[in-house]
C-alpha cells in the first residue's frame, strides 16, 4: 500500500509539474494549487461514485499523468523557448552581513530553537503518558470518524455527517485512504 501511495503522489506531482510548466508562467504559485486541486478532486469524485479505494485513486492519478505526458509531447516545441526569470539589476541591495541581519537571524534561530524544544518535550510527554494520543475534541468527535467511515464504506454517501462539506479531508488526509 505504501508503494501505491508513493506512486499516486508521484503521478500527481509530476502531472501538476508538467501542467504548470506548459501552461503557467508563475510556477511557484501554480504548482501547490494544482497539486491541492488534484488531491481534493480525485477522492471527491471517487467518493461520489462509491469507489473510494486505493486503486481508483491511483487510476485517476495515472490517467492524469498520461494526459499530461501526451500534452507535453504534443507541445514539446513550445518548450524550446523557456521563460527565464528576468533579473533586473537594482541599486538597492542589503549588505551581505549587517547588524540588522544578525539581529533578525539571531531572533529567528532563538524562536525556532524554542519550537523544537516544545516539539521534543511534547512528543516525550505524550508517549510517556497516553495509550492513545490525545487529539482535539473535534478531531475525535467527527473529523477523524468521518474519514474512517468513508474509508470503511468506500463512499461519501453513507456517512452520518452528511450535512456538512468535508472537502478538506480529501486532500489533507488523502494518504490515509491507503
Amino acid at each position, binding site marked *: 500500500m505504501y508503494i501505491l501511495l508513493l506512486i499516486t503522489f508521484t503521478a500527481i506531482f509530476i502531472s501538476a509539474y508538467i501542467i504548470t510548466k506548459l501552461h503557467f508562467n508563475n510556477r511557484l504559485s*501554480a504548482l501547490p494549487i494544482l497539486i491541492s*486541486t488534484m488531491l481534493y478532486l480525485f477522492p471527491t469524485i471517487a467518493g461520489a461514485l462509491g469507489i473510494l479505494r486505493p486503486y481508483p485513486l491511483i487510476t485517476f492519478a495515472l490517467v492524469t499523468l498520461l494526459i499530461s505526458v501526451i500534452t507535453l509531447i504534443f507541445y514539446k516545441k513550445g518548450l524550446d523557448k523557456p521563460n527565464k526569470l528576468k533579473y533586473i539589476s537594482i541599486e538597492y541591495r542589503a549588505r551581505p552581513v549587517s547588524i540588522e541581519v544578525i539581529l533578525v537571524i539571531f531572533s529567528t534561530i532563538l524562536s525556532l530553537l524554542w519550537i523544537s524544544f516544545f516539539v521534543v518535550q511534547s512528543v516525550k510527554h505524550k508517549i510517556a503518558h497516553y495509550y492513545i494520543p490525545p487529539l482535539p475534541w473535534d478531531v475525535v468527535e467527527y473529523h477523524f*470518524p468521518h474519514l474512517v467511515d468513508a474509508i470503511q464504506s468506500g463512499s461519501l454517501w453513507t456517512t452520518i455527517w452528511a450535512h456538512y462539506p468535508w472537502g478538506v479531508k480529501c486532500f489533507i488526509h488523502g494518504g490515509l485512504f491507503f
Partner: protein
Amino acid sequence: MILLLFSCAVLHILCFHDREALSGADIIAYLLLTVMLLLFPPLWDMHFNQIGKNDIAMSAFIIAALYFLLQCITGISRNETLGQNILLLGMTLGIISGIKPHGLLYSAFFLGMLLTGNLSKKASWHSAMVVSLCILFLAVFWYIRPLIMLKTIPPSGIDQTVIYNLNKGLHLFLHGRENILFSLAMVFCLIMGVIWHNQDFKMRAANYTLAASIVIFCLTPFSALNGTQMQLRLAPATLPLVIIIAVATFLRLIVKAGAENKPSLVNEPTPWSYRRVTFGAYVSLGLCSVAMVAIPWLAGLEAKQRWVWNLRGFILIGFLAASVYLYNAVKAAKDYHLGASRSRFAVFAGFIVLLTLGSQIRSYEPIGDLPGYNENTSVYRWVYQNIRGKNLYLLGLRPYGLYGQEFSNRVIYGGDSHNTKLEDWLSLLKHHKVDYLVIGRDYAQHEGWYDFKPFPSDLAKIMAMPNIFKLVWSDHGAMIFSIQPGFFNCS
C-alpha cells in the same frame, strides 16, 4: 506551507513587486513574516490546540485567493498570464467552498472584487464566469449530497449567527486571545478608513478582505452557539491577514522612504498619503507588539472571569483610544516628517520577536487532554484489546478510540447519551446489525477539567434485559453491552 508561501507572496505584491529581484530587505521581510506567523498564539493554536485543521486550510487558500486576485487587479498580469491567474483563482475558491459553507461567502466577496477591479468590463464578466464555473465544478458535490440525503443545503442555523443574536448583548464574547485579535483587525479597518483615499488598490484590497472576514464572521452560523462564545476561527483569514497587513504597512515605509530607492518606485500618490501610512504603521505595529505580549497573559487568566472582563474592557478602551489618537495624529501631522531606517526596523522587529518568545515561554502550558484517554475510563483500551471486526453503536464518549486494531471495527456514532431514549436506538441497532452497544457518560468540557453527566435514564431498561443486552464491561464512565442474536429475531 501553503499559508506561509502565499502569505509571503501577498507581502511581495504589497511591498516589492515594483522590483523584480530579491534584495536583503525582501528576505528579512519574509523571514519576519514567517516568524510572526509561526509564533502568533492564535495560529499556534490552529496547529496544536483548539482550532480545526480545516480552518488552517481555509486560511491558506483564502490568502492564496487574495494573491491571485492581486495578480489580476493590479496590472501585474500581462494578457497571457491573466487567464492563468483567473483559472487559479477559480480553483482556489472552489476548494474554499468545498471546505466550509462560509467559503461561499468568501467566494462571493472575491468575485465582487474581481468585478470591481481595473479590468475592462468585458474581461471582468468573462473572468467571473470562469471563476464561477470552477467553483461549481469543485464544490457542487458537497452541497448536492446533503440535498439528496437530508433534503437540506448548508449553511443552516441562521439563528445562531452573531447578527441574529445581537440582542444577547454581553453574552456574545470572544476569549482573551481572539478578543485582542478581533480588536486589532478593527483597528486596521479603522486605519484604512482614515486613509481611505489612498490610491494604492493593493493595500485596499488586502484591507477589504480583512473587513470582509469580519463581516463573514458575523454572518456565519454557529458563531454565537448558545450565546456564550464566539470563535474567530470562523473568519479564518483574519488571523494571517492581520499579520500580513501589519508587516506590509511597516515595510512599505522602508521600501519607499529609504534614500537608496528611486523616487519613481514610490507609488504612493502623494507624500501626504505616505505620512499617513507612516503613522498608521507605527501605531499598528505598536499595538501588535502590545497585543502579542498581552495575549498569553490574558489567556492564563481565563479561570478568573471577573479579571478577564476587566482586562478586556481596559484593552478595548486602549485600542479605541489608540485609534482616536491615530486619527487625530494623522490629521495634525501635515508637516511632520518621520524617518525610518532599516536598522531601526530590524531592531524593532527583533524586539517584537524576542518579546513574543519570552511571553510564550512564560505562559506555555501543555495541551489539554480528552476524557477517556487516560485515567478517566479505560473503555478504549478494552475495546482495542478485545473487540475486532465488529459493529459498535456508540452513545456518548468519542468514536476515535473504538475502531480497534487496524480500524477493523465499524463504529456508528449516535451522538450524546444524556437524555436519549431507548426507542431511538433500537431501530438503528437492528438496521446496522450491531454487535456491541457502548454507552458513555456525556461531559461538559472546561478549561482543564470535565464535568461528567449521569448515564441516560433508559439505561435501566437495557439493564433489565440481560438475555438480550449482556453487560460485558463497565466502569464509572462507560458500559459495553453485547447484543445477543435473539434481539434481531424479536419484533
